[in-house]
């Protein structure tokens, strides 16, 4: 198989499979009444999955490395942003605090 064909096959197969993953459950959960236990459990998905994206992204110092030390500037900026998010509940304030403190810390150290 030429690499040209190989690449197209991979794109089309991943694309079709991904669409099915996205569509099937959206369709099913819209058409049938989900069991009560599932609805109740799904209430926790946003908090669980978003913090699972947030935490590694804040601790990440480079490709494939997480770092917990207090000299991780992203960790400090992230903590400041979390505090601001908690007290103000404002997206803009959170972004300004987080990006502002990260850029300031990077300029200082």
């Amino acid at each position: 198989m030429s690499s040209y064909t190989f690449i197209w096959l991979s794109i089309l197969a991943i694309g079709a499979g991904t669409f099915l993953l996205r569509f099937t459950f959206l369709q099913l959960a819209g058409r049938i009444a989900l069991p009560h236990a599932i609805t109740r459990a799904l209430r926790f998905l946003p908090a669980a999955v978003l913090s699972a994206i947030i935490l590694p992204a804040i601790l990440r110092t480079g490709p494939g490395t997480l770092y917990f030390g207090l000299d991780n500037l992203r960790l400090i900026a992230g903590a400041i942003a979390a505090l601001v998010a908690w007290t103000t509940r404002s997206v803009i304030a959170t972004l300004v605090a987080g990006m502002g403190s990260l850029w300031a810390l990077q300029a200082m150290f």
Partner: protein
Amino acid sequence: MSEVNAGKWRDWIAGMRVMLPLLPGAIPFGMITGAVTADAQFTALQGIGQSIVVFAGAAQLASTQLIADAAPLAVVILTGLVINLRFAMYGTSLGPHFGSLSTGKRALIAYLMTDQAYALSITRYMSDAEMTPMAKFRYYMGGAAAMWVVWMSATAAGYFLGNKVPASWSLDFFVPLSFLALIVPNIRDRATAIAALAGGGTAVAAWSLPFNIGLFAAALCGIAAGYAVEVAAGRGATRSEGER
């Protein structure tokens, strides 16, 4: 413009506005994804075609790297799909909100599904019980369409120019910050807070696992922990269920 039409556009624009801070993070990521396809000998049509057909950054990046490493086709495809397993959960979570919409509209929602579109819609839907399915659709589409345009532009630019965004700008930091701003106001009770802690903790612990499995495992652990706390809380939880 009639008042009804103005209302329609308000939902689109509202979704777009909430997506705005999530867009800068997609730019360096998209440019890297595009640049890697050029390195892996994709034609321009294949590089852009990958973004149009797959439209899922982590899966695109990982499968391209495997192609560059001459991995077997089945491994390339399976890797891409395993990374995207989380979309099945997002679909289950969003599905009930779009119950009465046509299959065509739901196909569109499915095609445009991303972490970002899921995050901004579900957090809004959970805090606004008054929204109609159509308003929810328009809100989702406003944000999701903006992400589509940025992703296509960033990956195409990356294909032709390489990644031109200096790492020192830390644009990727917009991603955790925006998600933080979306989720914090939605942590209203102890069970949700525990779900967030368990999800974040698992993601960090499982960080080194391949194929984004850590994210999937973290979602399941977070859900299980939140559910367990709610069940243990007993009557209080039952009462709040009844209110909704």
